[in-house]
């Protein structure tokens, strides 16, 4: 209304077009849920109406019922607990070793020259292909699964970390030197906090890879675990149970990502 008034008041005048929008992330948390809900509702409708055959896609409500059964029978925890243990142990080892080595690469030219080619060489190896090797080295038990997950998390974390260290503002480091801070203080108080945004966004990728490798590890010689559960369902073509397993993995992924977002909010509130 006021806009029209403005236009009629002054002859030949029109308001300047606003073009400053976009390119700004605002958090709209509910949209994600709506997308999930719409997708599930669509599948439910399709399978009920019959234009999606039950053979190609299980009905979401059936999947949910299977999940409830799994929960009631207590088997859910029997599968979930070992999986989460493997994920936490393996990913912690891999991520902390990765951050450590990444920082060393970022700080020392000699280590960089020696290790960067090596990291580039092992990064593209599908870690699953090395599973037999890990079994020989660490046995068929948990240790080989930890090793596989740790190894898979390690390389992307290294790459993200040394990139983040490289990106730390050199003028801040120079400032630290000019006030005669010790080397350790400069690393602890300037380099590490400055690299934190890059390290955390690297962890987002590494932890997703850890979940992928968790299933791979469990598909080979695990009695319990989400991966074993999925493998068993798959071999029987039991789509409902297969989807229950897959959904659990997705939920783990969403939770991990949400946890990182929370850590970022807490640690990186200084960012503009």
């Amino acid at each position, binding site marked *: 209304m006021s806009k029209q008034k403005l236009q009629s008041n002054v002859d030949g005048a029109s308001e300047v077009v606003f073009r400053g929008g976009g390119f700004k992330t605002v958090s709209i948390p509910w949209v994600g849920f709506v997308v999930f809900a719409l997708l599930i509702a669509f599948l439910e409708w399709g399978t009920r109406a019959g234009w999606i055959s039950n053979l190609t896609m299980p009905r979401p409500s059936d999947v949910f019922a299977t999940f409830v059964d799994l929960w009631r029978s207590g088997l859910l925890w029997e599968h979930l607990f070992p999986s989460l243990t493997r994920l936490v142990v393996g990913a912690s080892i891999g991520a902390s070793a990765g951050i450590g080595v990444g920082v060393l690469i970022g700080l020392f030219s000699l280590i960089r020259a020696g290790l960067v080619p090596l990291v580039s060489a092992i990064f593209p190896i599908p870690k699953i292909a090395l599973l037999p090797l890990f079994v020989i080295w660490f046995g068929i038990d948990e240790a080989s699964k930890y090793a596989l997950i740790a190894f898979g998390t390690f390389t992307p974390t290294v790459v993200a970390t040394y990139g983040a260290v490289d990106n730390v503002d050199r*003028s*801040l480091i*120079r*400032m630290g*030197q*000019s*006030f*005669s*801070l*010790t080397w350790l*203080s400069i690393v602890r*108080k*300037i380099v590490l*906090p*400055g690299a934190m945004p890059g390290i955390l966004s690297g962890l987002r990728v590494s932890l997703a890879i850890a979940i992928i490798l968790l299933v791979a590890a469990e598909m080979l010689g695990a009695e319990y675990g989400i991966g074993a559960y999925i493998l068993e369902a798959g071999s029987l073509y039991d789509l409902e149970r297969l989807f229950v397993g897959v959904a659990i993995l997705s939920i783990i992924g969403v939770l991990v990502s949400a946890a990182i977002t929370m850590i970022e909010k807490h640690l*990186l509130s*200084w*960012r*503009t």
Partner: protein
Amino acid sequence: MELQLDNLCHAYNDVTVLDRISLRIASGKIVCIVGPSGCGKSTLLRLVGGLERASSGAVLQMGEPPADSINPLTYIFQDFALLPWRTVGGNVSLVLEDHGIQGERAEAIISDVLKRTKLTDFRKALPKQLSGGMKQRVAIARALAVKPAILLMDEPLSALDSQTRELLIDDLIALWVREQFTAIYVTHNLNEAVRLGHSIVVMSRRPGQVRAIVDIDKPLQQRQLGDADLELKQKELWDLMREEALAADQELIRV
């Protein structure tokens, strides 16, 4: 403590940046350095503060710094160089922690310097919440906290608008009147130079040499914006620099 620059030369690869610079920085005086862009002023300051090694020549420190000086040669940077993840107070305490000053002693120093730079109310603020002028005042507070014998300032006010700059010039003068610190002040703003400098070193274009040294005897606290005698000094400086600046500009075109 005084500084003596003795035949300082510096080259990056094959490019000579500084050529036989000899200067004496007397205790309790502010020496301004002006010169065309790229003549090596920032390089000179890095050599003086020990952040870079000169190709030849030496920076000599005459006499011991005062016993209570925590970091005798202290910089104030053009881009402030504040840690964005630390509050105003945290940025000041950063430079004390490493010298073993913590707890009550640090507290006393921090509140004192924040008071002197009129930042007491912003102690808990993060750098992103501050204006440019306030950020530079934090950097000044941080520098004062380590009780420098000599302040090295590289265009400290260049990133600020002219009103803020005027206010900070007054602040710096007030700080100097309170305790006569020694400073090397690099600037390309001739007005800043005549307001703050006891002597002004004019450098030639690259390779930077000392072209002239202009002294101003008028006490700092009596200098005002628009003083006629300062205007004359500024004109004198500009006449000295004009050709150099022109030539430096041409050089850039040829590159």
